[in-house]
């Protein structure tokens, strides 16, 4: 529970802080974030005694057991160290950010994102379930994307953010694949099981693949060569982000993963060679490039790359002492790199630039910052007695013992010393260049503003930390680092021989050589810069951008090739696919079933021939649109007759009313569209379409025939039997609609309502008035509201409404019901609109239509819910028979209420559609909205 709250606290904080950001004082969100972080930190520290004594705290809740995902946390010394680093550093960053963002917008957003990031990082380091961890892993990639692109109005920020997302996100995908593979081999995603199954994993045929995938994840996150590119480009982020994500936390996630999965994957040649080679390459590349960067943050970024390489190299060597050295250096790196980043930010705030060719001699203006930076830079350079010296010396000792390529064993220490030399040189540079080295040149802000004490406070605390670790190194290595190494490797780490750090031996001379060489290198810097400038420019950023642009263009071309905006093509492809998929299957079907055919009577034959003729007529005459529309209407009437002929009175009634309204709508639309369709398709295309159409028609017809001639085996007997006793109605179709399958009907009326509201929204600002032709052609009537129609329409309305009420009430037992009654009402009402004009009819409407839709759906839902109160299933109906005066025998059923809901929705939705389409027609129609 504690662990869950440690992770949840910052995540919840991230949601709440934006609410506080509106507060007048910028201090409030800062304090809130600080409190949240402090709470998480305290919870963690409370666990420290238990954890450091070697106990493992775990807690687990099931989430999706079928895929092995659970909400599971674990806290051992390794996790505790990282979690403390994340929260502790977070607290200092919040303090720093409060002063950094003073007078700038966006602090509230920053705190929220930072807390979200903190929660995600805590999730990574405390997850017991690896699938669960992946969620946080991805979350850090996403949040860092937003944080790096914090100044989203600046192009470099967007590019840097995108590069980070592509590289770390891609690595995340690889890691996911690796974890899934591991989980499927071990049979569990829980770390305890995976770490225990190291031998099984290493012996497995997929081990090289797993290793590659997991390393890809770790290396991209920890900016290892050649994926280190994103880190310098991420420097477009605000400095608190750089100090937090890019020196202390996110970039350490990859190293954490290497340390965490050590028992499962390490101790093989493949691990040794791949991890240590990558580490060495990163160490050298980073150290070399850092020396030549003039931007303080870029120098620090490359230096971070180099230090991460160093730690990775130690992880690759994989011995117990190398683990101790690596984890110790990780602590030291966080302690000296974060304050240097903060210094760079403070200096930028004071002078307006990060260019070291211009910032010089600041010691006069900020003496306190000078002293603090001296301590941290000395630690980074590896000056004796500082913490950085100790861990770097540990590294030199390890490099001497490293048995990587036996005849070339001397290579590792030599390369290590060279890297140390560059590292010393750039450490001198960032300190000396900024605070000494003559006078400032053309600073954008002059004189430099004095940095606030608050912005220096976290720097002071971290510098003190550097001194403290250097002073108490033995206790820290034995008390903390050893426990971490034990937790990481799974076997008890032997006590580290701290005495060898004070020996004057080969490692001492390596350190000395690196320091002296670094001094010489720094003294020769001007000459070196000139040489470096002559190197061919290989801007990796440009190469990356070029690749991204190529990939983007390629994808765009591909999409355009597939999706050319032609509905014609899509529909043709869909239908062709259906024909190709279904064709071969249908070809083997016996077309004629066992059921004898019904004899055909002349009237039906005539109807069928006429229906086919109208369909052909629509196709042949579709260029003359009004003519085709009239034929289409008659096709609909023939469909109605078909339903009526084949014992479906309800369908016939529905189809009839729908047909009337649909034709009205299409006619309304036609008045705004061209009256004719020009000949455009080529002959070839028309023949192609005809073939597709014939194949489609043939298939449908044959399947239909095959079904109809087979004997029937339906579930409908149940409905027929239960209709009267169970549903209380003798019209089985209606009983199915409002009772047996009432839930379906509820869905249908909801869809109808949505369609109507969509029509309302689409017609809302539609300006079509100017499209009404001034000179109507011969088909259109010149008088919009003829007198006879107007006179006749009014008396028709009450009659129609009465018919509608009758149809509605008898619907449960005789053909009819809510749908049909609703449609009849709509036809009667729309006649009023046509006869009297929109404004006239609209003024006489008692209600607007949208509430009808909502009310109808609500009524249907409530009827359904009512049965829940009676302890029955949703939408169970109830009915009873009554003798009422005047009306006589009547049956009352809750299904009637449901049907009333259907009725209301149908009326509301259809009227909303019609009235809004009709509104488009009126030149001087009602100004206000209809509906």
């Amino acid at each position, binding site marked *: 529970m504690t662990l869950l709250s440690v992770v949840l606290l910052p995540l919840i904080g991230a949601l709440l802080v934006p609410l506080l950001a509106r507060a007048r004082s910028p201090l409030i969100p800062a304090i809130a974030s600080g409190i949240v972080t402090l709470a998480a930190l305290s919870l963690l520290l409370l666990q420290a005694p238990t954890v450091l004594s070697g106990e493992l705290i775990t807690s687990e809740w099931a989430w999706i057991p079928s895929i092995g995902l659970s909400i599971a946390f674990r806290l051992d010394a390794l996790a505790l160290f990282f979690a403390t680093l994340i929260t502790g550093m977070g607290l200092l960053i919040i303090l720093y950010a409060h002063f950094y963002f003073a007078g700038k917008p966006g602090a509230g957003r920053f705190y929220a994102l930072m807390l979200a990031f903190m929660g995600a990082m805590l999730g990574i380091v405390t997850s017991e379930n690896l699938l669960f961890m992946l969620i946080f892993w991805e979350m850090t990639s996403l949040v860092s994307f937003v944080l790096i692109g914090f100044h989203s109005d600046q192009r470099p920020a967007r590019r840097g953010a995108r590069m980070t997302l592509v590289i770390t996100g891609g690595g995340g995908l690889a890691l996911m694949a690796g974890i899934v593979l591991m989980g499927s081999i071990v049979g569990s995603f829980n770390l305890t099981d995976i770490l225990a199954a190291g031998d099984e994993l290493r012996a497995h045929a997929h081990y090289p693949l797993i290793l590659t995938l997991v390393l890809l994840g770790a290396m991209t996150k920890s900016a290892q060569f050649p994926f280190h590119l994103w880190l310098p480009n991420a420097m477009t982020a605000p400095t608190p982000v750089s100090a937090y994500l890019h020196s202390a936390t996110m970039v350490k996630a990859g190293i954490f993963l290497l340390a965490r999965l050590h028992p499962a994957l390490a101790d093989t040649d493949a691990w040794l060679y791949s991890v240590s080679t990558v580490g060495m390459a990163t160490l050298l590349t980073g150290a070399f490039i850092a020396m030549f960067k003039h931007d303080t943050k870029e120098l620090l970024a490359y230096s971070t790359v180099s230090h991460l390489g160093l730690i990775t190299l130690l992880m690759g060597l994989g011995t117990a002492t190398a683990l101790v050295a690596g984890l110790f250096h990780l602590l030291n790196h966080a302690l000296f790199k974060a304050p240097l980043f903060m210094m760079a930010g403070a200096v930028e705030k004071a002078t307006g630039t990060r260019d070291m060719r211009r910032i010089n001699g600041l010691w006069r203006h900020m003496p306190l910052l000078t002293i603090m930076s001296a301590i941290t830079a000395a630690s980074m350079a590896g000056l004796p007695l500082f913490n950085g010296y100790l861990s770097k010396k540990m590294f030199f000792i390890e490099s001497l013992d490293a048995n990587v390529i036996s005849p070339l064993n001397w290579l590792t220490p030599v390369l290590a010393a060279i890297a140390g030399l560059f590292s010393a040189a750039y450490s001198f540079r960032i300190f000396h260049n900024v605070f000494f080295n003559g006078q400032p040149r053309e600073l954008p802000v002059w004189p430099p503003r004095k940095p606030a004490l608050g912005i220096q406070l976290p720097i002071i605390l971290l510098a003190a930390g550097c001194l403290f670790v250097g002073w108490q190194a033995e206790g820290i290595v034995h008390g903390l680092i050893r426990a971490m190494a034990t937790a990481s490797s799974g076997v008890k780490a032997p006590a580290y021989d701290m005495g060898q750090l004070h020996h004057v031996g080969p490692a001492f001379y390596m350190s000395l050589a690196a320091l002296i060489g670094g001094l010489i290198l720094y003294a020769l810097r001007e000459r070196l810069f000139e040489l470096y400038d002559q190197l061919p420019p290989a801007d990796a950023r440009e190469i990356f951008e070029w690749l991204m642009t190529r990939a983007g263009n390629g994808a765009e071309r591909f999409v355009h090739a597939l999706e050319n905006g032609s509905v014609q093509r899509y529909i043709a492809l869909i239908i062709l696919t259906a024909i190709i998929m279904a064709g071969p299957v249908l070809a083997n079907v016996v077309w004629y079933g066992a059921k004898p055919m019904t004899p055909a009577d002349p009237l039906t034959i005539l109807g069928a021939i006429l229906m086919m003729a109208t369909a052909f007529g629509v196709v042949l005459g579709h260029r003359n649109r009004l003519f085709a529309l009239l034929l289409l209407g008659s096709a609909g009437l023939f469909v109605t007759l078909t339903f009526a002929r084949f014992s479906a009175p309800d*369908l016939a009634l529905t189809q009839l009313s729908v047909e009337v309204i649909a034709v009205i709508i299409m006619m309304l639309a036609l008045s705004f569209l061209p009256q004719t369709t020009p000949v455009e398709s080529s002959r070839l295309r028309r023949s192609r379409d005809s073939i597709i159409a014939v194949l489609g028609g043939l298939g449908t017809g044959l399947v239909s025939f095959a079904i109809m001639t087979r004997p029937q085996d339906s579930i409908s007997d149940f409905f027929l039997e239960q209709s009267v006793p169970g549903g209380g109605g003798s019209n089985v179709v209606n009983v199915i609609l409002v009772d047996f399958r009432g839930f379906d009907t509820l869905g249908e009326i909801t869809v109808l309502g949505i369609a109507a509201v969509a029509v309302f929204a689409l017609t809302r600002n539609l300006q079509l008035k100017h499209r009404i032709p001034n000179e109507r052609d011969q088909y259109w009537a010149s008088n919009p509201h003829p007198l006879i129609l107007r006179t006749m329409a009014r008396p028709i309305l009450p009659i129609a409404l009465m018919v509608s009420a009758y149809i509605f009430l008898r619907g449960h037992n005789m053909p009819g019901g809510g749908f049909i009654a609703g449609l009849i009402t709509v036809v009667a009402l729309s006649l009023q609109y046509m006869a009297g004009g929109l404004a006239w009819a609209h003024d006489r409407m008692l209600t607007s239509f949208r509430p009808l839709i909502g009310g109808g759906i609500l009524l249907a839902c409530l009827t359904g819910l009512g049965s829940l109160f009676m302890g029955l299933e949703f939408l169970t109906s109830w009915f009873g028979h009554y003798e009422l005066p005047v009306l006589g025998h009547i049956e009352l059923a809750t299904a009637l209420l449901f049907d009333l809901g259907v009725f209301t929705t149908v009326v509301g939705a259809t009227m909303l559609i019609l009235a809004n389409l009709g509104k488009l027609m009126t030149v001087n129609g009602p100004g206000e909205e209809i509906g």
Partner: protein
Amino acid sequence: MEALYAATVGVLMACGIYLVLRARTFPVIMGLTLISHAVNLFLFATGRLALRAPAVIGQSETYTDPLPQALVLTAIVIGFAMTAFVVVLALRAVVELRNDHVDGVDPDEDWRP
């Protein structure tokens, strides 16, 4: 009768498909309507053809299958809602795009009278 019915469904479907493959909005809308007719008739026919046997208890000797009828009834109403929506979409498109093409061609042919 079944053969005749099947032929009608096939013809409606074929005409519908040909029309939805046209290049302008209005024929496509008409094609969709024909296809809905074909599909509704098709679904209806899965209950087999029965004469004088409506599924109203006590009205006839035998009853036709009521279930496809219930399905088709809602399909008709939904089909109507779809038609209305597509019609408005076509109107909207003609205003926004200044033409009624659906074949990917996008000329500015505002045929305002």
